[in-house]
């Protein structure tokens, strides 16, 4: 009963989380000028928290208000330390970040951009929980160096969740309860999105093959296939 109310809440009423997000945006958009209201997609993307450590110097941990100040500090205080300054294109937004060469993409997404969707689980490229889409192909962000991602288009679960086109996929996951603990779910959904982009009409075998690199310790495997097949139908019907 409670569950049903929560689900309805997102359509009819305003949930607590949504209220907080919208209240925050009311302040933000007031500053940007009247007449501009963010779409639902933009609101969801903006909901990603901005981390305090975003502009901290990796060498002496001093904090700065802007990226430019950090760059200036680095040039004067640590001229001999190579610290790549790069722009990562994540969910169609450019993020200037200062990264260390040894940081993985997963670490950078989580600790620099505040995008916590790509999960660390095995951290060795075996389980698929950290899957993101790099230039259209699902890849393991725990086994990709962030410094090698400059100029590439990265898509994470946050971008998929924010895009209303992919609602059928998320609704199908909810309907079929294709998760228990939910920790592996972002990896599965990102992989499924890449599959449906390439093959909008997959067979169950195609789905199983595509998901063969994602592990689920709660073993909800049959439900993943069911949910994705139903989502494919929904996406084709334009629901």
């Amino acid at each position: 009963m409670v569950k049903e109310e929560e689900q309805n809440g997102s359509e009819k009423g305003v949930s607590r989380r949504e209220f907080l997000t919208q209240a925050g945006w009311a302040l933000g958009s007031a500053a940007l000028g009247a007449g501009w209201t963010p779409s639902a997609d933009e609101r969801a993307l903006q909901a990603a928290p901005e981390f305090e450590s975003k502009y901290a110097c990796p060498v002496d941990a001093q904090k700065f208000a802007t990226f430019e100040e950090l760059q200036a500090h680095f040039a004067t205080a640590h001229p001999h330390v190579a610290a790549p300054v790069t722009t990562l294109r994540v969910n169609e937004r450019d993020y200037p970040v200062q990264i260390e060469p040894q940081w993985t993409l997963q670490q950078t997404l989580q600790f620099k951009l505040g995008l916590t969707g790509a999960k660390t689980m095995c951290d060795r490229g075996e389980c698929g929980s950290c899957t993101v889409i790099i230039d259209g192909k699902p890849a393991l962000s725990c086994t990709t160096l962030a410094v090698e991602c400059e100029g590439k288009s990265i898509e994470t679960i946050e971008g998929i969740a924010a895009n209303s086109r992919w609602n059928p996929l998320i609704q199908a996951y909810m309907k079929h309860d294709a998760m228990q603990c939910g920790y592996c779910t972002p990896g599965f959904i990102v992989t499924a999105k890449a599959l449906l982009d390439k093959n909008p009409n997959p067979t169950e075998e195609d789905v199983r093959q595509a998901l063969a690199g994602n592990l689920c310790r709660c073993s909800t495997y049959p439900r993943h296939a069911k949910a994705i097949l139903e989502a494919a139908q929904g996406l084709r019907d334009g629901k």
Partner: protein
Amino acid sequence: MRRFDHLNATSIQEATSALKNKSAVFIAGGTDLIGRLKDEILPGYPELIVNLKTIQGLDYVHEEGGLLKIGAGTRLADIAADPIVRLRYTALGQAAGRAASPHIRRMGTLGGNISQLHRCWYFRAPQNRFECLRKGGKTCFALAGDNRYHSIFGAVNGCIAVHPSDTAPSLVALDARIKTTKRTIIAEDFWDVRVASCTVLDTDEIVTEVQIPAPDVGARSAFVKFALRKSIDFPIVNAAVFVGGGAARICLNAVAPKPYRATKAEQVIAGKSIDSRNTGAAGAAAAADSRPLEANRYKVQIAKVLVERALLECASAA
């Protein structure tokens, strides 16, 4: 991971000269290297990582002058999906399509797959907990320890870890040549067992291309793999077979520190029809020289059966 410098190489020359300068290693797909760096299992930690992915023109598959040429930077997924490879170099296509998981096949390259380091849980234990022979130590911990996944054909340089590559036995069966920045090596001679290396390559030598002679009309090849799960896992045993012109080339992997060419099985099946009786004899011959350890006797039976199945698959495809 500890800090290192990172260089995006734009040419082979730039990469090899960077590898000469300081303690440097190169990265292509990174699926083996990054795990190694996280676990810190190498005897020394590299100061510089040289990225080979930024070098143009290492990613191709095409036939030319009686050879199939595959760039070392070609992803396994692209090899597995290539129609020419699937049709005429079936064993390689099947192997590239069964290695690891779909994600890793899209990231990992052919050059990296054949150059990956051995799998042994003592060697790979994080933070060098076991200072084994492969790290310059004096002991092989697997000999007296848990060796259920180790070699059934004895040690090479004292090490009984297995080479886990799926594409390696296919390349041996298909009689491939491996071209590097310094020379061209016959696939069979490519692997070695040394401290922190499993190939005969120098530290500043890079695999650039794999060449496979085009098979005659009517020749067949096949690859079969036994692993705990259908996806993700390394092989317990795998086998690749090439049959053509009345002869066969048979190679097993994950059974020895190097891909193991089963010459006795090749002699048994040469000139004979491929039916269940002859393949059974070939399978038995493939394992004739096996010397299993305390915990891996079961692998002998798997090796026999895989040779048999790979041969039969060649026959049924004909």
